């Protein structure tokens, strides 16, 4: 392979700090695989990166149509990367529909590689294009490279004896080979992946390998590209890295929590986009004793997890917004019986079925308040894909320490997006102490730990601890059913105090950037990337801005009120209609303003910057 790594010397080689590339085509064109392959390759090379997979909810919409377009964007750099990139340097479009949907994001003079074979009249009609963009000068502002991807792939594979359909399924690897050449990347990682993926299917191994090599060689031979690009490795802090998506990080975080607590992990789940990958991944980890239970519905998923927690397991359930709605009553039960439980809501666009594959942050108020009566629950939110690992550990630790259900609010962008992640040393992970009650002497089911207000975890099978719990209001200490007015008020307040006591485990808010100044941005969840990038850029222009990114949404850090007062203005960008901003205004009487985007897409850095400028100029 090494001979193909170096482009012929006559080509100009330009070194860039960063590049954004997007692959787009039909949902059957393998764009997610192509993007993931490119991502792994640049990750292993040592670039910092962020990705944005963007795919339709339909598995295969009619080929060539606008609803069927699937895309995968990678931003890779020799310096820090916080977002998948506002706009694209290079766009690979496999058909006119993909071109039409994605062209608006391509930078002026950007590289545009299109599959010429898919620009027949019928293809244009499916994409509702009145004329051929390759002929009508509408692409004049870009560097267009029309390539006969289908024909060239077929030609490369003609001796393998495959049918046309099978050959055509390899054309994404032809395009991938071209991009590797264009960005001076080795094909090693993808060659290894192909061997592994199609193990035992020699013909497919050969076909994909040959298609990718043909794409690479095509660029070398045809002089279509006069320039290639080099993006040197980033200077990440020393350590061993891997690429990680949010869902994968959550799955591994729960395995870590199980190991660190010594409790068996039980996941009850019902398949739902974009949370299902957590179930897929945890179901692989049976050698860790993980029990995954694909329940008959969302309600059974959470109630089975409650049953497991009752028996002394680390019970978790994973879902998305519509599933959260169904779990509501059971959440109330978990609050009432005071058992540890972790509920992950991988948020997506709503209401109702909404936008299953698109991201949103609109379940915050549901997580905080969406239950009958007073049923407070601690809420945590990871800010990057890698942070999902740490949030899973922290949520499990809080649940066990305080004997409470804990909600984790991730979202579709974190779930499917990926970033390089420094692998922690297992011995440095926090321990999660578990104290099962085993002393019948003076045992009372609702006698509380004075510090945490947690009740004892008295699991079935422990001699002398036979007792009854349930959803009916109970007397404090004894746990006996009790309907007395003053006892009820006492219990409501106790449950609230217990959740408030979790603040002992919430670190103070320390603003990134300026410690006081003109503007504080308070944000949560997956907006971390674009907000961080925007604050850096604006501070470089001399503005005095701080950024608090909340990982704990209930309880909030105890110093948050003080921090809010140190700035002239407070801005809260959210992918919803203004949920956190409403809380901050209500709780701290601060004149915070919201900045809201509800498009199923993450904020762009430029959008946040624009808002900052609008506020401060």
């Amino acid at each position, binding site marked *: 392979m090494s001979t193909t790594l170096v482009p012929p010397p006559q080509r100009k080689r330009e070194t860039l700090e960063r590049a954004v590339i997007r692959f787009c085509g039909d949902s059957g064109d393998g764009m997610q695989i192509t993007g993931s392959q490119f991502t792994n390759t640049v*990750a*292993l090379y*040592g670039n910092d990166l962020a990705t944005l997979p963007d795919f339709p909810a339909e598995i295969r919409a009619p080929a060539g149509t606008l609803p069927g377009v699937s895309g995968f964007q990678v931003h890779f750099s020799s310096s820090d990367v916080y977002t998948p990139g506002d706009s694209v340097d290079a766009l690979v479009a496999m058909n006119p529909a993909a071109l039409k949907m994605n062209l608006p994001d391509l930078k002026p003079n950007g590289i545009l590689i299109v599959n010429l074979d898919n620009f027949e009249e019928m293809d244009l009609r499916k994409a509702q294009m009145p004329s051929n963009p390759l002929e009508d000068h509408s692409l004049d502002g870009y560097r267009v490279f029309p390539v006969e991807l289908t024909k060239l792939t077929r030609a490369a594979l003609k001796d393998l004896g495959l049918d046309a359909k099978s050959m055509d399924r390899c054309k994404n690897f032809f395009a991938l080979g071209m991009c590797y050449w264009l960005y001076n990347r080795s094909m090693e990682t993808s060659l290894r992946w192909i061997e592994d993926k199609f193990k035992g299917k020699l013909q497919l191994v050969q076909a994909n390998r040959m298609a990718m090599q043909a794409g690479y060689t095509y660029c070398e031979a045809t002089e279509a590209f006069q320039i290639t690009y080099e993006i040197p490795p980033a*200077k*990440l*802090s*020393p*350590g*061993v*890295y*891997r*690429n990680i998506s949010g869902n994968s990080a959550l799955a*591994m975080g729960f*395995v870590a929590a199980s*190991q660190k607590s010594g409790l*068996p992990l*039980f996941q*009850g789940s019902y398949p739902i986009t974009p949370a299902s990958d957590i179930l897929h991944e945890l179901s692989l*980890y*049976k*050698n*860790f*004793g993980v*029990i995954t*239970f694909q*329940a*008959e519905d969302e*309600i*059974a998923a959470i*109630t*089975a997890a*409650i*049953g*497991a*927690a*009752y*028996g*002394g*397991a680390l*019970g978790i359930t994973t879902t998305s917004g519509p599933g959260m709605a169904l779990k509501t009553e*059971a959440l*109330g*039960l978990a609050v009432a*019986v005071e058992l540890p439980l972790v509920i992950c809501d991988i948020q997506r666009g709503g209401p109702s079925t909404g936008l299953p594959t698109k991201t949103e942050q609109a379940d915050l108020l549901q997580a905080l308040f969406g239950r009958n009566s007073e049923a407070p629950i601690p809420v945590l939110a990871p800010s990057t894909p890698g942070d999902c690992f740490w949030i899973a550990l922290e949520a499990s630790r809080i649940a066990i320490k305080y004997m409470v259900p804990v909600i984790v609010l991730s979202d579709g962008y974190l779930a499917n997006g990926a970033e390089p992640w420094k*692998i*922690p040393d*297992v011995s440095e992970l926090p321990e999660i102490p578990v104290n099962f009650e085993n002393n019948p002497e003076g045992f009372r089911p609702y006698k509380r730990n004075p510090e945490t207000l947690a009740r004892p975890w008295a699991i*079935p*099978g*422990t*001699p002398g*601890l*036979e*007792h*009854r*719990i*349930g*959803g*009916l209001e109970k007397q404090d200490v004894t746990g*006996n059913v009790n309907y007395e007015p003053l006892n009820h008020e006492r219990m409501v307040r106790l449950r609230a105090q217990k959740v408030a006591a979790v603040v002992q485990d919430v670190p103070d808010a320390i603003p990134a950037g300026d410690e006081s100044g003109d503007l504080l941005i308070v944000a949560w969840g997956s907006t971390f990337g674009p907000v961080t990038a925007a604050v850096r850029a604006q501070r470089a222009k001399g503005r005095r801005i701080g950024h608090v990114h909340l990982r704990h949404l209930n309880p909030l850090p105890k110093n948050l009120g003080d921090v809010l007062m140190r700035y002239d203005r407070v801005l809260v960008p959210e992918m919803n209609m203004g949920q956190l901003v409403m809380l901050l205004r209500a709780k701290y009487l601060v004149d915070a303003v919201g900045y809201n985007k509800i498009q199923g897409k993450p904020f762009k850095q430029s959008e946040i910057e624009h808002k900052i400028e609008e506020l401060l100029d």
Partner: protein
Amino acid sequence: MSSATLPPYAKKDFQTDQEIRWCPGCGDYAILSAVQSVFPELGIPKEKLVVISGIGCSSRFPYYMNTFGFHTIHGRAPAIATGLKITRPDLEVWVATGDGDSLSIGGNHTIHMLRRNVGLKVLMFNNRIYGLTKGQYSPTSEVGKKTKSTPYGTADRPFNPIALALGANATFVARSVDIFQQHLKDTLRKAAAHKGSAYVEILQNCNIFNDHAWESFTEKDARSEHVVQLEHGKPLIFGKNRDKGLRLNGLDLEVVSLGNGITEKDLLVHDQHNPQPAYAFLLAHVEEQPGLPAPIGVFRWWPDQPRYEDTVAAQIRDVQAQRGTADLGKLLHAGDTWEVHA
């Protein structure tokens, strides 16, 4: 704990200090008494017994049982019990539920628990009415029944709980009656002996909202004419003078009088282990035909079906044997990694 070291339990060991809040005369008292009588015989340490319930009159049951108990939410007891049983196969988990809890709001969990064959014993108190909400019709109420929510009569066709459980491929399905104490205890013992899901319908009277619910079965003079007791290996005989029987006629059952050339040999002999699903279905639907008696006892007992929690545990053991001991560090480093040097 081996049974040798097990304390000699008595009925009172399973009674709690809680004031029982069922209406005087409720059939639930009889069921509670039967369960408290049978539990000491099971040879199971008290702390290993768990009673889980949903919502409804029947679901107050755990409060009155001195075992571990969990009074949950409406319809969800089978799901909560499933989660507990998968993670703690060492426990003996019983579910107390009713016709509304198990067949209406919790119908989905009931059928899925049964198809998985989770090792749970389910006592379904069937009084054909909603008691705790004060008298609305239930999914087992007869067509046309006038209740608070159906002043002009119900339009719904009822479930046949036995047929429903059989349809979900339940491996143990039985029926007993609250006031038939000996029969009830005997049925509970059999359910306790079954390893997989045991579904026991207990016909129960609600003397407040649906009094005489099962009168044709329970009334002294009528019961022998209207009830046929299923006994494994024995012909289906009933009647005050035990002079009637059920005979197979094609795909149906018919009542015949013994004598005049008809002997016990002509009658259907009950086989609770019959591997043909159709057999138990035939029995389940007998009572819907005019003039035919309602069977009580064990309709189906398939003892050798794999239990869900055992299969789950075996799979974990197999994977552990294949892939070796779990190593978190290895898991985190799986796949492609790269090192950044200082």
